[in-house]
C-alpha cells in the first residue's frame, strides 16, 4: 500500500463514515413513513415531500430564500467598499481591520445575536436613541425578518470581504492610475475595472454568504421570533421536539437542494465571467 494512502486514509474514512453515511441515512429517512410510536416505518412514501408544499412550509422556504438573498445583497453593498479599502491600505490598518471584521464570525453567532437583542429591543439602545431625538419609537424591529437580516450581515460580512479582497489584491494599482490619467472618473473605474476584475471573488463571496445565511438556526430563533422562522428552525424542531424524523429529513433535503442550486448558479456565473474575459483579451 502506498504511503500517501496511509496519510489520506484516516480523514477520507472519517468523511465516508461521518458525512457520506449520515447523509444517505437522511435521504433514506426522507422517504420513510412517520409513525408516532416507532418514529418511522420502512414503508416508502412521498408524503414528506408533499408536506413541504403546504402553505405553511412553502412560506418558510420562501422566507428562507428571501432572508438569504437580502443578507447576501447587503453584504455585497457593504463588502465592496470595505474590500477595496483593505486591499489598498497599509499593513497596519489591514491587520486591525481584519481582526475586527472576523470577530463576530469567530466569537459565535449567539453572542452577536445577544448584542443585537440588547440594541434592538423595545427598551434597547436604538429606541432610546430615537427617543432622545424626540422620534416616537413605540415598536421595534426585534422579532422581525429585518432583525435577522441585520444580525446575519453582521457576521457574514467577512465571508464576502475576504474572497473579494483576494481578487482585488490582484488588480494592479497602475491600472487605476492609468485610467485616471486618461481622464476616467472614479465611478467609471469602479464600473469598468474594479467590478469586472473582481468577479471571481464576488461569485464565491455570494455563494458563501447565501449558503451560510439560509442554514442558520440560532440567529433566526433569537431575533426572528414567530415571524422570522426559517428552514433551520423547522428542521431543528422536527428533529428534537416533534420527533418527525422523516419530515425533518425531507426538509434537510430541501436545504441541500437550495445549496446545490446556488452552487450551480455560482459555477455558471464564474464560467461566463471567464468567457467574457477571454473574448476581451
Amino acid at each position, binding site marked *: 500500500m502506498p504511503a500517501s494512502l496511509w496519510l489520506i486514509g484516516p480523514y477520507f474514512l472519517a468523511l465516508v463514515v461521518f458525512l457520506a453515511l449520515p447523509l444517505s441515512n437522511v435521504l433514506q429517512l426522507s422517504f420513510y413513513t412517520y409513525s408516532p410510536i416507532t418514529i418511522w416505518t420502512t414503508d416508502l412514501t412521498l408524503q414528506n415531500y408533499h408536506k413541504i408544499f403546504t402553505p405553511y412550509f412553502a412560506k418558510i422556504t420562501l422566507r428562507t430564500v428571501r432572508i438569504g438573498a437580502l443578507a447576501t445583497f447587503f453584504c455585497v453593498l457593504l463588502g465592496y467598499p470595505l474590500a477595496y479599502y483593505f486591499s489598498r491600505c497599509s499593513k497596519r490598518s489591514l491587520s486591525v481591520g481584519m481582526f475586527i471584521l472576523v470577530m463576530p464570525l469567530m466569537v459565535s453567532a449567539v453572542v452577536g445575536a445577544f448584542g443585537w437583542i440588547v440594541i434592538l429591543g423595545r427598551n434597547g439602545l436604538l429606541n432610546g436613541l430615537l427617543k432622545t431625538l424626540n422620534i416616537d419609537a413605540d415598536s421595534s424591529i426585534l422579532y422581525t425578518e429585518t432583525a435577522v437580516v441585520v444580525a446575519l450581515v453582521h457576521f457574514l460580512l467577512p465571508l464576502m470581504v475576504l474572497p473579494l479582497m483576494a481578487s482585488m489584491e490582484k488588480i494592479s494599482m497602475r491600472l487605476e492610475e492609468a485610467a485616471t490619467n486618461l481622464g476616467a472618473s472614479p465611478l467609471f473605474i469602479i464600473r469598468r475595472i474594479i467590478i469586472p476584475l473582481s468577479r471571481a471573488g464576488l461569485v464565491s463571496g455570494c455563494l458563501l454568504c447565501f449558503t451560510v445565511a439560509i*442554514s442558520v438556526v440560532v440567529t433566526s430563533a433569537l431575533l426572528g421570533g414567530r415571524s422570522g422562522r426559517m428552514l433551520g428552525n423547522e428542521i431543528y424542531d422536527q428533529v428534537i421536539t416533534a420527533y418527525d424524523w422523516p419530515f425533518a429529513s425531507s426538509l434537510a433535503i430541501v436545504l441541500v437542494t437550495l445549496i446545490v442550486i446556488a452552487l450551480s448558479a455560482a459555477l455558471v456565473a464564474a464560467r461566463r465571467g471567464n468567457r467574457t474575459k477571454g473574448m476581451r483579451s
Partner: protein
Amino acid sequence: MMARSAFLKAFVYIIMALILMPLLVVVGVSFNPTARFIIVPLEPSLHWYSEFFGRSEYVGSLFLVSLPLACLSAALATTLGTLVAIALVRFNIRGRAYLESIFMIPILFPSILLGAALYLFFARLEMAGTFVTLVIGHTLIGTPFVIRVVTAGLSGINPAIEEAAINLGYNRLQAFFKVVMPMLRSSLVSGAIFAFILSFSDINVSIFLSGPHTNTLPLHIFSDIQWQGDPTIAAASTIQIVVVTSLILLAQRFSRARLVF
C-alpha cells in the same frame, strides 16, 4: 487614489464601529450592577461574573464541556489535516484536484445539516448525545481549515531540505519530525488555533449533538437567552469574547496567513 478618499475612509470607520458595537454592548452589560440590561454602567461591578462562577451549569459547560471538547477536536483535526496536507504537497497523487475539493466539503456544507445528519445517524445507532459524537462533529468542521493552512505552509518549504536530511542518514519519518516539523510549526499552531476556535464557538453542530450533560458554553448562553435570563448571559458572552479574541491575536502572531475561505 480612490483608496485615499476621505469619504471611503469614513465609511470604513463607521462600518468597523457598527461591527464592534454589539460586542461592546455585551461587554458593557456584563459589568452593570443591576438586573437590567444597562449598557454603560456608571458603577461597574463584577456581580454577574461571580454569579457566572457560582452556577455549576455555566462553569461545567465552560470547563467540563467546551474547553476539553475544543482541545480534543483541535488536536484530532490538526493530526488528520496535517497528514492530508503532507500527502497533497509531497506525493504525486492521481486526481489530486478532485481530492482537494472533496476534502473541503465540510466547509461549504452547512454545519446545521452536518449536525442534523449526524444526530439522526447516531440516534439510529443509539449513541446520540454523548461527548464522543460532539468530538466527531467538531473534528470534521476543523480539519479542512487545518488542511488549508498546513498545505500553504508546507508548499513554502523546499523538499530539497528533506532530501538532504535523508541523504545524510535520516529516514523519512525522522526527516519529517526533526527537520520539516520545526519549520512548519507556525502553520501547525495557527491551524490548531483555528480548529479550536471553530469548535469553541460552534453552535450549529452542538445544538443537535449535545445531550443533557454535554451543553457547550454557546449552547448554554443560547438557552438562557431564550428563557429570558439575567445579565449572567452577558458575563458568559464576555468570557466567550475574551477567549476567542485572545486566540485570534495569538494566531496572528504565529502566522501572517489570512483566513481565506
